[in-house]
Structures are given as structure tokens and as C-alpha cells.
């Protein structure tokens, strides 16, 4: 198997340019962030932050400073509200399970939308085995949640609501503040959580302004290191731990803190927020250049998600009809453009992304979808290169599918 992969890698030799756009699934760490992290492995603060010696106190200081910075960017009341976890998946698990453990006996209903990330979808599914019912709010063709249906769904029995602030796949910026109000009006005791991983560092918002009880954020989505994320838990909101062990500085997550990653997360946040407006403008420019370029150069394409201001500044998600997604990712990779496709192959079937199905895409539209995210580090030249490679790739694959699929 590894042999095969080595051969695949060899096939990539001699690429004239490489453009990485798969920020959804992992990201490169910029040198500035890397340089901030490195000393924390061996120069300083490598101690356990709960222990009484210099390297421990250094770690404590570094973690608190990082939490302080992130709490500022999030618009928290205090740094105590920031709880580090090993990532978005863990933060979402903690939010859902921690809250439902806490509220057991008080109600059995969970409300989410049809387009949540899998760490929400799958955990709620699991909770149905323990007597919870899950109500999934539908979305419209651009991915916006139906607020009327939300109003109908929330009742006195509802303990938890989770709606992501920005859709991870199609970039829909949801009306979270409104949704939060609707939920609290119907049931002030229901806990409102939002996965803000695709909002943090990409659009301006503050957790206090949104009025949410909990929010998930992730480091790699803003070009920090992988393996670290955080859950904002509003002061006064109680949730239980879902893992037990030695508790350190993080009351909701036991085990030894990973100081270098926490520092990296804070550094990446700083860089993202430093010139947020300018970064957003830059990303939006590249995003629209890419979308418009694709529509100009390639026929039979569909944009998934909304256009303009209501779309996350970094998100490009497009379906290429008569083009199989996985084949397209390979073809692009061989040309130095790295993206992901909207369908995951299960044993027998290509399983289309639940988000694309929810916005009403037909299976054949979902199968040929490609997700790309731009960052402040990408340049116009990068996008030009993608626009040079992509039409050729699509054309070649459409040549292979030929007349097999006719609409």
C-alpha cells in the first residue's frame, strides 16, 4: 500500500506550481505560526502547567495568555470561558454530550439543522439511542436554515440546539443571532450551541453579541496547527466533562495541556484578526475571481451555496456536471491543485454529501462537486493557475464520461 502511494507521489514530480485549497480538511501552517510554536517544545514552557516549577509556571503563563487573546477575538466576558480541546470534533462532542449529560431528565429533544458537520450529525444520532429525539431543521436551496421551522421545532422539552454559524461546505452565513432569539423566546432553558469554526477569523462576530451559550472554534481552519480547538462556554452555563482523568488548567478536558499547539492557535488567531477586514476583502476577491473564472471557462457548472456577502469569504463549492468528483481531485492533484470532492465512497456507493442533498442537489450534481477554500496567503497568480488547470481537467474527464451521462 505504501509502495503504491510512493509511486503516486513520484507521479507528481516536476510540478511547476502547487496550490493548496483543501483548508476544509487540513491546512499548511505558515512560518510565522511555526516559529511562534517551536520554542515551546524545548526552549521554554515545556513543563506541566499545574506544577510548581519554572517550566510549569511558564506553561501556565503561556496558556493563560493564549486563552486571553482568543477570548478577546471571540468577544468573551473572560478567559475562563475558553476551554481548549484537541479540535473541532472534540469540542462539538463535548458541547453536545456534556450539555445533555447535565440536562438529563429535564428534556429529551435536540434541535439541529440538516447541514451540520458530521461531529454534530453523528453525535446526535448516537444520542437517539439513549432516548433523545432529534429534530433537523431544513434549509433552502442556498443552505439558509428555515427560521419558521426552527420556531415550530423548539418546545419546552428541548434541551439543546446546535446550528453552525457558517456552513463548512457551502459557506452559508447563518442568521445565528435571530435563531438564538427564536430559541430563547420559546424556551429560555434550551442551551444554544454554534459551531463557529468557519466563522472565526473569517467574518466579524462576537459570542456575546450572538448571545450563544457555547461556540466551537478550530485552529487549523485559520491556519493554526492541527490537534487544537476550543469550546466557548458562557459563564453560568454548566456542562459535564465527557472524559475523566487528571484535571489541569482545563476544567472540561483532562490530561496534560499541549502548550505548543495552544500557543500556535493563539498566534494563528492573532494573524487572522490583525487585519481582519483587509483579509476578508482579499479572500472575497480571490473567491469571486475563482467562481467567476470557472463560470466563464467551464460549461454546465453549479455554484453550491449563496453568492456575495452572505457567503463565507473563503468558500468556493462548485458542481461540475458529468465529471466524477474523485477522479477530478486526482487529475487536479497531478497538476498541483489540491482540493476535495463532495462525495465519499462507501463500500458500494458514492455517498453524496448530506449538505448538498439538503440544499436539493441531485445525486449526480453532488458527485461532481469540488470544495475549495482560499486564504490570505493565496495570490491572484494562484487563482490564475487553478483557472488554467481546472478547465483542462474537467474537459478531459468529460471526455471519458462522454455520452454515458446525458441530462
Amino acid at each position, binding site marked *: 500500500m505504501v509502495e503504491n502511494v510512493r509511486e503516486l507521489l513520484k507521479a507528481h514530480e516536476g510540478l511547476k506550481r502547487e496550490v493548496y485549497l483543501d483548508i476544509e480538511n487540513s491546512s499548511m501552517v505558515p512560518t510565522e505560526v511555526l516559529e511562534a510554536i517551536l520554542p515551546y517544545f524545548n526552549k521554554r514552557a515545556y513543563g506541566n502547567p499545574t506544577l510548581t516549577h519554572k517550566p510549569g509556571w511558564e506553561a501556565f503563563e503561556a496558556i493563560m495568555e493564549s486563552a486571553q487573546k482568543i477570548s478577546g477575538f471571540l468577544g468573551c466576558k473572560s478567559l475562563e470561558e475558553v476551554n481548549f480541546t484537541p479540535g473541532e470534533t472534540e469540542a462539538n462532542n463535548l458541547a453536545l454530550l456534556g450539555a445533555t449529560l447535565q440536562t438529563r431528565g429535564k428534556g429529551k429533544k435536540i434541535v439541529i439543522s440538516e447541514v451540520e458537520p458530521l461531529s454534530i450529525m453523528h453525535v446526535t444520532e448516537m444520542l437517539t439511542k439513549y432516548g433523545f429525539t432529534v429534530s433537523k431543521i431544513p434549509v433552502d436551496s442556498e443552505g439558509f436554515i428555515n427560521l419558521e421551522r426552527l420556531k415550530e421545532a423548539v418546545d419546552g422539552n428541548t434541551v439543546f440546539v446546535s446550528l453552525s454559524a457558517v456552513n463548512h461546505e457551502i459557506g452559508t452565513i447563518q442568521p445565528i443571532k435571530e435563531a438564538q432569539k427564536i430559541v430563547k423566546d420559546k424556551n429560555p432553558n434550551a442551551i444554544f450551541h454554534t459551531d463557529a469554526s468557519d466563522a472565526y477569523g473569517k467574518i466579524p462576530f462576537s459570542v456575546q453579541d450572538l448571545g450563544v451559550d457555547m461556540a466551537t472554534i478550530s485552529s487549523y481552519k485559520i491556519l493554526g496547527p492541527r490537534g487544537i480547538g476550543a469550546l466557548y462556554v458562557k459563564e453560568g452555563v454548566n456542562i459535564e466533562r465527557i472524559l475523566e482523568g487528571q484535571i489541569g488548567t482545563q476544567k472540561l478536558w483532562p490530561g496534560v495541556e499541549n502548550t505548543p499547539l495552544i500557543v500556535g492557535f493563539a498566534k494563528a488567531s492573532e494573524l487572522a484578526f490583525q487585519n481582519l477586514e483587509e483579509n476578508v476583502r482579499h479572500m472575497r476577491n480571490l473567491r469571486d475571481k475563482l467562481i467567476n473564472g470557472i463560470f466563464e471557462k467551464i460549461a454546465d457548472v453549479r455554484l453550491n451555496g449563496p453568492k456575495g456577502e452572505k457567503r463565507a469569504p473563503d468558500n468556493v463549492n462548485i458542481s461540475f456536471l458529468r465529471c466524477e468528483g474523485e477522479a477530478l481531485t486526482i487529475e487536479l492533484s497531478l497538476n498541483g491543485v489540491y482540493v476535495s470532492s463532495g462525495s465519499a465512497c462507501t463500500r*458500494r*456507493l458514492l455517498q453524496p454529501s448530506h449538505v448538498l442533498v439538503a440544499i436539493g442537489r441531485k445525486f449526480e450534481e453532488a458527485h461532481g462537486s469540488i470544495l475549495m477554500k482560499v486564504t490570505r496567503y493565496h495570490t491572484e497568480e494562484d487563482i490564475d493557475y487553478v483557472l488554467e488547470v481546472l478547465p483542462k481537467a474537467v474537459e478531459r474527464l468529460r471526455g471519458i464520461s462522454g455520452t454515458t451521462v446525458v441530462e
Partner: protein
Amino acid sequence: MSRVPLPYSQKILELFRNPKNLGRMEDATVSAVAGNPQCGDMITFYLKINEQEIIEKATFESYGCAANIATSSIATEKVKGMKLEDAWKITWKSVAEEVGGLPAVKFHCGILAVGALRRAIRAYYKNKQIAPEWLPKELTFEEKQALEEEELARILEKKMKMAEEK
């Protein structure tokens, strides 16, 4: 998003980049389809068959992944010059072996390729209204699997649509 690691062999990559016998055949004696766009996998096989029941030419079109393109390419190469009876004996396993093995999630891609080939052969005899002795009446493994996949995709799509309407 595609989460399955796919350590494709060199052979698959090569055939993905340069597939043989690609394209629609206008003067085909017979053609057959396996899969459907809902599966995300769909392939069409074209055969040109002469009076002696020998396959003179075979081509394909594939709306499928790299493994499907590669196995289809191999299958069309293999059957060229073969008697229908011998072409019938080609199995998905032998095709998979020839591309250097397939990861488990990609078995169906090879199965579909051979499924389409067998359907084409069956269609040929059905058109001629003859039933050679060697041709099994029952569907073979590859044909059944193709059928099942098509059925599954239809059910899945219906299920997801219903879930949506709820």
C-alpha cells in the same frame, strides 16, 4: 468529502491518465450500461462483434472514478479478438489483479466494468434471439452486483428525499 485513503497502483494511475479504447462507438453491434448517475458510477460498454462471434473492437465510456476507468480500459483490451464465449469468462477478480489490485472500497468499480461487459454479451444474444448453451440463465455475480448497486442508489436517493420532505 472523500475520506477514504486510496493507494492506487501505478497501473491504475497510468490507465487513468491514458485510458485505452475510450469513447462511444457509432457502429457498435451492441452496447450496455451498468450503474447510474445516482451511484456516481456509470459505465457504457460498446462491442463490435463479427459473424464468427468474435469481438473485433471494444470501447467504453465511464462516469466513474480512476479505478473504474482503469478496469474498464483493461477489460476492453482483454476482450479484443476474443470469442464471446471466452470473453464471458473474464471475471472482475482477474481484471482487478491486472491493475495491481483494488482497495476494498473500489471492488465495485471493477465489478461494474465486467458487469457492463456481460450485459453487452447478453444483449447481443437477446437481439439475435439465440441462447448458447454456455450462457447461464441466471445472472452471474458481477451482473447481480451491478443490479444491486443501481437499486441501492435508487433507494438511498428516495430515502434522502423523504428525509428532506419530512
